[in-house]
């Protein structure tokens, strides 16, 4: 469903002397319908950049992205519009994920309105209620503002908005890194359920090895913009072949190790 071929992204900075920073270097991978692919790496590894490239919030310096067989990288923005609903993104920070001046109801209704998916106010209200129930949140939340909601609630509202467009691919950029461990479990189990029921594919980006191991079928290990290892999560994490992967796995196990004093 998603094919990424030698994707690269460089950032240029500097006034008199142009400096180049290669965030992503010729990364390739593919993702099938209904599967979850994880991208692990430290901060600065380029994983967030890949997320934005796939969600077309950034344009690649080189490389190609294919979606359901169509090459989307060379499309003009206008041509891409029809693909927009099918590729969506969830971000990391619940505090800034929603417009603070808009009520939850309006935030969820927004995608319905701009893509004209509902005809009347009544239809809209019904659909919004349906969506918020699907993410296990009470309808009372609809009249609140984001500031009055907890992190876990906000992330679920974000999921509800995305569901309005019935996406096929959801890019999740560290969606639970800012959440408590118990809330993380709620959000992730919701995402898992949606993956099963709606055959949604996830590009799941995280620095947390444990989470990626539990959530994703396949994983890509990213280091300074390059893929150092790729394979089924079980295999990669239980018997890593690359030294860097070993280090990552060890670090996550340290936090799991029993107190040996």
């Amino acid at each position, binding site marked *: 469903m998603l094919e990424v071929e030698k994707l690269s992204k460089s950032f240029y900075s500097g006034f008199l002397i142009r400096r180049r920073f290669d965030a992503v270097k010729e990364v390739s991978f593919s993702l099938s319908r209904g599967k979850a692919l994880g991208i692990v790496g430290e901060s600065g590894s380029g994983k967030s950049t890949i997320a934005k490239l796939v969600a077309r919030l950034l344009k690649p310096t080189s490389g190609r992205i294919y979606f359901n067989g169509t090459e989307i990288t060379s499309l003009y923005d206008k041509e891409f519009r029809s693909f927009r609903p099918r590729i969506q993104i969830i971000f990391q920070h619940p505090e800034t994920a929603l417009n603070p*001046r808009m009520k939850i109801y309006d935030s969820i209704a927004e995608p319905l309105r701009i893509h004209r998916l509902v005809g009347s106010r009544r239809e809209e209200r019904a659909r919004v209620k349906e969506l918020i129930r699907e993410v296990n949140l009470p309808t009372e939340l609809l009249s609140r503002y984001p500031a009055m909601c907890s992190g876990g609630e906000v992330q679920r509202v974000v999921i509800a908005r995305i569901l309005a467009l019935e996406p096929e691919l959801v890019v999740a950029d560290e969606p639970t890194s800012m959440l408590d461990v118990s809330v993380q479990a709620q959000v992730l189990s919701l995402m898992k359920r949606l993956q099963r029921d709606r055959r949604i594919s996830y590009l799941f980006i995280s620095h947390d090895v444990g989470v990626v191991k539990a959530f994703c079928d396949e994983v890509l290990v990213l280091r300074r913009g390059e893929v150092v290892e790729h394979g089924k999560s079980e295999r990669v994490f239980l018997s890593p072949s690359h030294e860097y992967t070993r280090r990552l796995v060890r670090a996550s196990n340290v936090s799991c190790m029993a107190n040996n004093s």
Partner: protein
Amino acid sequence: MRGNKIALAIVSAIILFALFPDVFSPYDPNQINLDRALETPSLKHLFGTDNFGRDILSRVIHGARVSFFAGVTIAGISFALGTLLGLIAGYYGGPADELVMRVVDILLAMPGIIIALIIIGILGPSMPNLVVALASVGWVKYARLVRGSTLEIKEEEFVESARALGCTDFYILYRHILPNVISPAIALATLDIGSAILHIAGMSFLGLGAQPPTPEWGIMLRESIAFMETAPHLMIFPGLMIFVTVYSFNALGDSLGSRWRHYGTLGD
């Protein structure tokens, strides 16, 4: 906080005077009555009369209309123009931003009054021309302010989410960016009204704005100079009105600014 109630009361009074001057004025402001000229304040004429026998209280009240509407118009145009340009410059960056900022820098490098004088010189002295002149310089501070806030907000995740959802640039600017950058601009506009009123009085004093026989505070001040020693009340009341009005708008603008100080940025 109590001071603000007074400021609010005064501003409300000014607005009432501006909207219904005839209701509050005991006399026709332009009614000449030479045998009652230069009378000191009395029960019949609370603020006294001027050299033409016109009731000063009525003239001052009508002056509120002139000053208030002109002041609001100037602040309003500056606010609208500046906010719009600031949004565009901040959001699109690149050549649009360069252009707007160069103009801003140029205008800020010259004293606004001089530019206003030049414009009046070209267009001729009258109230409408004065409004145009002052608005042409006034928009700059809004553009700067709004551009700064826009630059911050446009990087926020909810804006990127909106783009990912498929919102058009115009929609994003209108629905997502504008509401989150506008509060400090509104506070500035309230302050600006006071400052505009002051400029209007000043320029009219110089003869470059409102023209006689319009009852405008600046003109009244100018006409009162000849009688400064013999009939000071001609000078005192318009002067007092300017002071009190401008002060009240400033106080109101300040309190709005501090109450809304969190709204320009996100988070708490």
